[in-house]
């Protein structure tokens, strides 16, 4: 099992809001594919999946806030 986490967006940025998941639970995602958008101040940032597999669980939903490093979703890797 792997987790998509909110990456480091730069100095002084501690949180971001999940703006839009491109996929829903059960969808297949590819490694490196952008799977959601997060927003901070005047920037939208596309977050990629670090592995290929099935998006098993969305942990932080649209409109919710997350801390840098926090798990946003859970991916069950496929071989």
């Amino acid at each position, binding site marked *: 099992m792997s987790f998509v986490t909110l990456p480091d967006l730069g100095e002084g940025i501690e949180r971001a809001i999940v*703006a839009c998941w491109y996929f829903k639970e059960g969808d297949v995602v590819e490694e490196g594919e952008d799977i959601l958008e997060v927003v901070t101040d005047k920037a939208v940032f596309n977050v990629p999946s670090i592995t290929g597999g099935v998006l098993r669980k969305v942990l932080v939903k649209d409109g919710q806030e997350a801390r840098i490093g926090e798990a946003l979703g859970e991916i069950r890797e496929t071989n």
Partner: protein
Amino acid sequence: MLGALVNNYHVQDLSLIDYAATYRIQKECVERVIAGGAQTLLLCEHLPVITLGRLAKEANVLSREAIASKGIRIISVDRGGDVTLHSPGQLVVYPILRLENFKKDLRWYLHQLEQVAIDLLMTFGIVADRIPGKTGVWVDGEKIASIGIGVKKWVAFHGLAINVCTDLEVFDLIKPCGLDIRMTSMTRLKGEPVDMGGVKERLVECFGRGFGLKSEIRV
């Protein structure tokens, strides 16, 4: 050689152009830069359009009837920020930059874009500044430049809009950036017409200096 590649970029003046067409060009540039292609600076003016960033609130679009009667489209876009308006007389600047060449830091990049606008305005004798907590560029409390970006694979797109000789009354249709503010323009502040061509030339100079980039090709 690698240094030259990192520090060179293309400038493309799209003149007066529909927003949707520019967005397609932006996305093509983003994919090219992601694939290792040259960084690009797009310059243009847009036909009247209202864009909603990802944090935009519906209430900040003040008069949909008046907007519709003027034939102005409202488009949701993948940039940060609230609502803004583009129209002729406003210089819209879309840097498509590989941030890993500079700093993978969104606040740093937004700050740099503000500085490019501040430096540009200074060349016209306009003293502009930042307001803490309100991204953008201001002159005596009135907003002259707005900023909103998108980032994919650490390649930045969207950018900066500077009111050169914009008809400021159109901003009455929205609550710009979701704030109770007045907008201003270079023409209003100078009390005389400001040439868009001259602004574009100086913008390219300030941008190159600000990011340590050398314009390689101008198309």
